């Protein structure tokens, strides 16, 4: 999905005459995990901050639209929680939007969407490194000195917390009461998150106009379609 998104962003971007860096940014945003991926890549390919800010606004608006659109499609097509969770986790760009969309369908779908999205996030560093190396080869940025440090600096650290907690829980470290309490706490934190997603979505910030939006839309549609087919093949439903 990631590579498809990147390729189609570059292609569509060229079609619409966007700068290559901008196209790469939007592609990465849609392909991996939205805002944080864009910020990570901005540094890696030395893009302009302005480009990044527009790209982020576009991704946010997109996420907000998908939160409403995906469950609608899901109910229309009668998708199972499992299918919907995979689909959302694979095709939505922004982690917050993916989690929100999953939970907008059902709790089971939300849990699955989150986990699937997290495993994509874990790969973010690798993709950014490859892009940085490609740009370096083209002479568009400085060389990458230490690849391991580069990867580590882009690894989402909270995933370590996630892994640690699931390991502890699997080992039976928490009693059922504690699990319930932590789960409740997590639900309240998600409530704050969802409100924040809405409050951070500003339509007028997409100043760059229609073109980047259309490129994003094209990429997102391709990503959603590709992951839909992929899940069909994978789950054999």
């Amino acid at each position, binding site marked *: 999905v990631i590579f498809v998104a990147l390729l189609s962003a570059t292609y569509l971007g060229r079609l619409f005459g966007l700068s290559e860096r901008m196209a790469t940014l939007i592609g990465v945003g849609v392909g991996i995990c939205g*805002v944080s991926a864009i910020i990570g890549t901005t540094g890696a390919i030395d893009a302009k901050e302005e480009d990044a800010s527009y790209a982020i606004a576009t991704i946010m608006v997109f996420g*907000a639209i998908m*939160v*409403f659109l995906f*469950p609608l499609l899901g109910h229309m097509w009668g998708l199972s929680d*499992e299918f919907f969770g*995979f689909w959302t*986790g694979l095709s939505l760009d922004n*982690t*917050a939007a993916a*989690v*929100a969309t999953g*939970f*907008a*369908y059902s709790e*089971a779908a939300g*849990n*699955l969407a*989150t*986990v699937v999205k*997290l*495993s*994509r996030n*874990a*790969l973010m560093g690798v993709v950014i490194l490859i892009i940085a190396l490609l740009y370096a080869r083209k002479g568009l940025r400085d060389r990458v000195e230490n690849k391991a440090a580069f990867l580590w600096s882009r690894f989402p650290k*909270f995933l370590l*917390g*996630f*892994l640690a*907690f*699931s390991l502890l*829980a*699997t080992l039976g470290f*928490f009693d059922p009461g*504690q*699990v*319930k309490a*932590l*789960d409740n*706490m*997590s*639900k309240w*934190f*998600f*409530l*704050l*998150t*969802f*409100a*924040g997603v*809405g*409050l*951070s*979505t*500003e*339509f*007028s910030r997409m100043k760059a106009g229609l073109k980047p939006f259309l490129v994003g839309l094209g990429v997102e549609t391709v990503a959603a379609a590709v992951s839909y087919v*992929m899940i069909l093949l*994978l*789950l054999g439903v």
Partner: protein
Amino acid sequence: LTVNELTMRLSRSINLGLGSARYLPGICLLFVVGYLGKIVANYVPHTEYVLFAIAIGMLLRNTIKIPQIFVPGINTYEFWLKTGIVLMAAAWPCKMSFPSVLPACCWWWQ
């Protein structure tokens, strides 16, 4: 770790504590908007509150100018997302059957 470094870190974390007060208004707003979403969802059958929380938030953001005092707190939502995900992991083993996640892992790590 020298004493000097330690004092520096200590004073930095104290500053952090004092500075965190500025996040409060925005976090309260997040809570109000989210809870409002929950209330509205109670009146509309077959919907999840998520949609309403986001819709109300977007409505606010795009119709009125959010006072500056709320902005730092609103921006903390990614922190709540990450913390929520980490805590969710505690309840994860009993909620999700391992086989359902396995295909995803195989696919991405192959």
